[in-house]
């Protein structure tokens, strides 16, 4: 056979091996349990939808990066680009049946026809939470709290949540006589400040603003100081939202030192109207790992009803990469804790009884499938990183005992079979 198909996959997509999946599930479970802890309900939307649902919602760049194709029936179809727009479509469709305000989480893959690179894939996961149907700033406060709890649950101590207010930005731009129709574009350019610096921003702003206005604007925005100072310097503009937000965060127990006010933070997307967020893990140079903000008109594309919402997306794959880089997966258990060996035909029923006892006691366990030499069975346990092997031959069986081999140390211990689960459950660590 020389017509074999090469077992290759598309650029920017990935296969995940058992070890990868153990880590991914661990992280996903921790994130999910925080979402559930705060009362968010799970929803899911289709991987593909009518192209018109997605196209034009993410700006020109977003439309270019959206995967579109014709389905078998000739319909224009697109792959999910993020989880926010499908959520807006979902709310427009089901809002009468949903409890309002509605809090949902969604963890699913999205697809972008981007150039693949470090921490940039064409298929990747997002973990979103959104609160829709309330304008209360308590929602922003809760989102900030959830961010801190998620990072802490994952084991990160060093992180910052940068925030800004679109309302404040608009107030600054209006005071500087920037016409309203230009403000979105100006905000989009300001968002690049971190990447292209003051010089780059000045150049990109030149077709839109006078040299003098650009200078005044950047002087306001690029000013180093303490958190309180930064807010005090902006007293002339609309800072009420930010002060209220901080008050709520404080009452929520969000550590104040984690919140960094950044007037240059704009978030590229057009639909934000209030507080915007971007969170960074300060020990890892990987870009924002969580971002989002307040939006007002998102559902208006699908419904005449108005819904104000606030939400963030956690970049699951970036978080994975950060944890990998920080070596935070040490000691992770991949699969079974116990391998029960297959000694011979005569002892097999007893081995299966031991196996069932362990599994019933919620100890993950498996049996080897052939009565091979012990060495081969131990090698299997070793390769699969199973920490304990239970051996029960005819001698042990007669005495009602079993031998446990601890793979890491090679030490063996013989105890009554009836004590196996208590013994394994009592272990200090694997």
């Amino acid at each position: 056979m020389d017509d074999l198909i090469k077992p290759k996959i598309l650029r920017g997509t990935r296969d995940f091996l058992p070890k990868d999946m153990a880590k991914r599930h661990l992280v996903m479970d921790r994130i999910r349990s925080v979402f559930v802890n705060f009362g968010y309900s799970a929803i899911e939307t289709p991987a593909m939808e009518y192209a018109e649902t997605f196209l034009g919602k993410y700006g020109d760049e977003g439309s270019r990066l959206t995967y579109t194709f014709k389905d078998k029936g000739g319909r224009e179809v697109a792959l999910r680009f993020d989880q926010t727009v499908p959520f807006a479509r979902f709310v427009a469709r089901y809002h009468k049946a949903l409890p309002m305000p509605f809090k949902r989480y969604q963890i699913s893959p999205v697809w972008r026809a981007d150039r693949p690179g470090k921490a940039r894939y064409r298929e990747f996961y997002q973990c979103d939470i959104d609160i829709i149907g309330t304008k209360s700033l308590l929602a922003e406060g809760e989102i900030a709290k959830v961010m801190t709890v998620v990072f802490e649950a994952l084991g990160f101590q060093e992180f910052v949540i940068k925030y800004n207010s679109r309302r404040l930005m608009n107030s600054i731009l209006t005071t500087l006589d920037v016409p309203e129709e230009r403000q979105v574009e100006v905000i989009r350019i300001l968002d690049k400040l971190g990447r292209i610096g003051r010089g780059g921003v000045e150049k990109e702003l030149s077709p839109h603003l006078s040299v003098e206005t650009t200078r005044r604007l950047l002087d306001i925005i690029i000013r180093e100081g303490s958190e309180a100072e930064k807010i005090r310097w902006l007293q002339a503009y609309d800072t009420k939202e930010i002060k209220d937000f901080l008050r709520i965060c404080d009452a929520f127990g969000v550590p104040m030192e984690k919140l960094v006010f950044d007037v240059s933070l704009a978030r590229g997307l057009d639909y934000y109207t209030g507080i915007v967020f971007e969170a960074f893990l300060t020990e890892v140079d990987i870009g924002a790992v969580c971002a989002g903000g307040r939006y007002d008109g998102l559902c208006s594309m699908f419904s005449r009803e108005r819904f104000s919402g606030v939400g963030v997306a956690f970049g699951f794959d970036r978080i994975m990469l950060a944890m990998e880089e920080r070596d935070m997966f040490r000691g992770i258990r991949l699969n079974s804790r116990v391998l029960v060996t297959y000694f011979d035909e005569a002892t097999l029923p007893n081995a299966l009884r031991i196996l069932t006892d362990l599994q019933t006691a919620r100890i993950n366990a498996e049996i080897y499938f052939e009565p091979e030499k012990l060495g081969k069975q131990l090698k299997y346990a070793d390769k699969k990183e199973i920490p304990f092997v239970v051996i029960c031959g005819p001698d042990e069986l007669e005495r009602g005992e079993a031998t446990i081999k601890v793979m890491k140390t090679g030490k063996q211990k013989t105890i009554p079979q009836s004590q196996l689960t208590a013994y394994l459950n009592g272990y200090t660590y694997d």
Partner: protein
Amino acid sequence: MTDTKRTRIAIQKSGRLTDGSVKFLSSRGLRFQRNGRNLITPCDGAPCDVLHLRDDDIPEYVCRSVVDFGIVGENVLYEKNVRVRLLKRLGFSPCSLVIAVPQGSSIKVPEDLEGERIATSHPRLLTRFLRERQINAAIITIRGAVEVTPQLNLADAVCDITQTGTTLKEHALVPLTTVFESQAVLIESPFPKPDTMNLLSL
């Protein structure tokens, strides 16, 4: 109905800490009926009640602010792992949490405990001790009569409280190492009432 304005102090109903606790409170001028049939006894001339409880319930009562203060063994406090404020180590009722093995055991040093069964009613303190020394062993948690487990082939070692060492000796157990040194401690609720009396400055 009891008056919630009164300060409540919990002490062990009857046991190792009872005498010391009563002495400590009377040294602060608090006099009350020794535990008779009443769980709650008022102090003479002070806005204060003394509660006589099981010692391992005291941290819970203090944590939940049902009582304002409690006197309890430090070992019990750590084992319960509840959020209370440790105000002071009181110096009385000292005892040790030790690991002991049967005479003639092949376990000679703590490292030999690797893979062995250790019976205890202090699993948290024992886990911490074993983790610090990176010893991986099977902790068998039981409520009491820890000292008989080796002769029943339920454990290879015990981790138990000892004051004089008599109980260990009676069961032919030899101390191997000390896990925790304990004494009576004064604890306070994490949510102190604004008008609670200050037990330490009395």
